[in-house]
């Protein structure tokens, strides 16, 4: 997976890597489908004779307007299937679908089926020989289920059996019915994701649209012959993205087809529990240290924190409460808590919100220990995360390494603290690259704290030249090694405030 992402990264750069925006790209493709769909629907006639001819008219007579819109409508829908499957595959490969994250995975499956139904119903509307084939084939599939007493397929025995109301019904289902469920489905899918990325970056959006327009011009979408219920089309140019089930239904029994459809759905839906993911214990609030600022609520990527009214006699109005079934144990909340500063004299260090297995107290102890072990002339400390490039290999007498669950767990005050303890020359921050944080936003939050754009910010007294951010994924391992060497050489030549270093050695507390 990281190799494929690396290839995309080389072509698109980290900012536009499509692999980081597969969900957002799908939403964007739906927008194209929506706009082009409205355009085509305005000119579409929902009647037996009008349906096919109105589309022929668009493709032949209005080739450069409605014709392109029609092609865009088809191709954006097809492309969405590619992005949905890639999105699914990626979340699976990155193990972002188990544990508490089962929710987005589980709710993704109905969304996938709704998309499939939307595509299938769209092809009915063309009322060409392919529409005829799939209309009959889907009716035969439905007839296997004990829903209708009179077989639905009897509606397509002869042309006289059909009427215009049929098209009004299918158009309603395709244009209003399923889309409403789909929008609702996507909303549910993103319900537990705070600040979800639903828009791809502009460069990617423009590129995708241009590519689809080129395809629409070079290879416009066309219909088959007009439907004729007196004959069976010998061959159809099937859209394999949406209509792949029908050939299978021709050779398998209907029971087997439904078993496959339900089997695959149920298999995918229960996948997050096989095996159950062992997650570290979730965040815990220490109300006596919580001042109700709400920063953890703001930073939590999974909407797992709620600020509630305080009942005790504390001077603060609110206190954070963790919803355990939403918490992914990333520790970002501990990093965002203003009480998580290592300068406090308290021992053990208790903060407002913390991780039972990876506490801020332990982080301070670890930082102290690794700093004490440094002995080279030029020394640095590296803070990184467990989901990006490996860091253990850089651990030596000149480089101390601390691996966090997510770099968003690092309070910016630890950078100040490390530098002020006196035995490091620089702090190197790494971890997941922009827009590809394993916990969605942790990396951005830390970068913003360092750049004074997010609270609690790095104190301005920190010499920013001694802090270097270089984010690196597994595929960037070599580059990371180079960046560390480069920073070390930079620090070797950077001596202006060595005197200050000595002076500030004693400063321990800024609580």
């Amino acid at each position, binding site marked *: 997976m990281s190799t494929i992402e690396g290839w995309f990264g080389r072509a*698109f750069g980290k900012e536009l890597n499509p692999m980081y925006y597969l969900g957002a790209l799908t939403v964007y493709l739906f927008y194209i489908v929506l706009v082009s769909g409205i355009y085509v629907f305005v000119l579409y006639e929902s009647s037996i004779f009008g349906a096919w001819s109105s589309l022929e008219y668009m493709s032949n007579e209005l080739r450069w307007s409605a014709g392109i819109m029609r092609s865009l409508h088809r191709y954006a829908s097809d492309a969405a299937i*590619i992005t949905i499957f890639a999105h699914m595959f990626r979340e699976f490969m990155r193990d972002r679908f188990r544990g508490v994250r089962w929710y987005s995975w589980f709710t993704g499956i109905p969304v996938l089926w709704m998309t499939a139904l939307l595509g299938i119903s769209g092809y009915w509307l063309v009322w060409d020989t392919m529409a005829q084939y799939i209309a009959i084939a889907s009716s035969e599939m439905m007839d296997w289920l004990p829903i209708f007493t009179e077989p639905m397929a009897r509606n397509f025995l002869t042309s006289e059996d059909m009427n215009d109301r049929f098209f009004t019904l299918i158009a309603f289902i395709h244009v209003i019915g399923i889309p409403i469920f789909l929008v609702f489905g996507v909303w549910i899918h993103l319900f537990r994701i705070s600040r979800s990325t639903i828009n791809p970056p502009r460069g990617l959006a423009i590129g995708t649209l241009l590519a689809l327009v080129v395809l629409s011009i070079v290879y416009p979408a066309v219909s088959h012959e007009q439907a004729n219920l007196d004959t069976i089309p*010998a061959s159809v140019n099937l859209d394999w993205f949406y209509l792949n089930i029908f*050939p299978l239904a021709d050779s398998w029994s209907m029971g087997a087809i439904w078993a496959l459809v339900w089997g695959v759905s149920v298999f995918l839906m229960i996948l997050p529990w096989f095996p159950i993911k062992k997650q570290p214990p979730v965040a815990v609030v220490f109300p006596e240290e919580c001042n109700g600022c709400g920063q953890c609520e703001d930073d939590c990527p999974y909407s797992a924190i709620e600020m509630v009214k305080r009942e005790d006699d504390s001077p603060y109005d609110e206190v954070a409460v963790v919803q355990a079934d939403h918490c992914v144990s990333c520790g970002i909340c501990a990093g965002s808590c203003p009480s998580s500063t290592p300068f406090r004299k308290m021992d053990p260090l208790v903060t407002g919100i913390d991780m039972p297995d990876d506490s801020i107290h332990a982080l301070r102890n670890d930082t102290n220990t690794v700093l004490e072990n440094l002995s080279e002339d030029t020394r640095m400390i590296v803070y990184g995360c467990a989901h990006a490039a490996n860091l253990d290999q850089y651990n030596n007498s000149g480089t101390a390494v601390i691996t966090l669950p997510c770099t968003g767990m690092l309070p910016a005050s630890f950078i100040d603290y490390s530098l002020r303890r006196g035995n490091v020359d620089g702090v190197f921050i790494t971890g997941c690259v922009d827009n590809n944080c394993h916990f969605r936003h942790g990396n951005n939050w830390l970068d913003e704290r360092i750049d004074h754009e997010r609270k609690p910010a790095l104190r301005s007294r920190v010499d920013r030249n001694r802090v270097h951010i270089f984010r690196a994924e597994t595929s960037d391992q070599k580059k990371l090694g180079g960046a560390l060497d480069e920073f070390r050489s930079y620090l070797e030549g950077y001596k202006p405030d060595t005197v200050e270093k000595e002076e500030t050695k004693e400063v321990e507390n800024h609580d």
Partner: protein
Amino acid sequence: MIKATQIIGQSVFYGLFIAATGYLSASPAYQVIEPDMALVKISMAHTSKPAGKCITQTPEQLEKLPPNMRLPVVCPRERSPLYLEVELDGKMIYQESILPAGINHDSACYNYHKIKVPAGSYNLKTRMRDSILTEGFDYTAERNVELAASDILVIDFDSKHQEFIFE
């Protein structure tokens, strides 16, 4: 700055993306039926005769009933199964007993069946029985049909006129 290699790289990816989208959106072609075959669809919706005898009530019997329930003839709810046979050039291609729908089997009988046959001319015979109380077939029909490749022949039953229809 975007480099030339990136432009090429992106063009390759976008190219592959639209090539895959365009190709799979209409190819490979799928053969629904072999080019020299035709299709016979046998499908009907017919309400068969009751599965038991109707009883005519005597005036005395009627008198004992509340006024709103005085039906002169009482029939059983359950209906007979349909029995249907289709023969093509003397060869039986379909032979089926169809149960009436509904929990009490008191609704119409429905069926839907497709048979592929090579294109050509055929002698077609259809027979149907819709009552278990009588012997023999209640409806029969015979036709000579010409089926071109890809033709669909529908065998249905017109309950109103009590006859087979071939479309």
